[in-house]
């Protein structure tokens, strides 16, 4: 499972992505817990519910079940255009 970070999320993670090979999170909720442990500064942003999640380049609802092959993305509100 690959987790990609964008915009200022990368200032917190200090990297573009993480790859999880074993015991990967099965839902977005589990993923949030997993990432809070790795990057405690993400916690307050999860609490404020400002971040968006995409699975395989599509916005998802939180109860989707995640597979090892998935590409997950975490990013702040967009500002294109």
């Amino acid at each position, binding site marked *: 499972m690959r987790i990609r970070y964008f*915009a200022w999320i990368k200032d917190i993670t200090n990297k573009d992505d993480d790859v999880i090979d074993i015991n990967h999170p099965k839902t977005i909720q589990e993923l949030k817990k997993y990432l809070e442990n790795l990057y405690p500064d993400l916690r307050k942003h999860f609490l404020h519910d400002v971040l968006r999640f*995409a699975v395989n*380049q599509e916005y998802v609802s939180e109860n989707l079940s995640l597979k090892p092959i998935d590409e997950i993305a975490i990013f702040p509100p*967009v500002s*294109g255009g």
Partner: protein
Amino acid sequence: MIKIQKKNFNLEEEIDKIKNKHSDIGAQTSFVGYVRDLNNNKDVKYLNLEVYEEMAFKELSKIENNALKKWSLIDTLIIHRYGKLNVNEKIVLVSCFSQHRKDSFNACEFIMDYLKKDAPFWKNEFYYKDDEWLENSK
């Protein structure tokens, strides 16, 4: 057609390329977004525009398809730039081609609204002393 690119583009050339394919086009509405010299009451030096490219293609295609379902369009064109963009540079072009003008107006505004809301681009705006990540207003 969707293009995500670093380089600048020429409005006449890009719009003409599509127009020349269809002699039934009577109307074309386009929107261009530029880097402004002032934002958040600070002088802007430049933007660094980040994109999640694979997802941006998918999202923009969905938005384009929704516009094609809602209005009678002959063709559409979206060009979004990324990378370092200086003040006055073009950021984005959305152009909608139709027989009659209302379809092109409505579709162009619809695509821009959803692009601003959902397309995964992020503007990191650099001022003289600091920088800020922007968020589109709702």
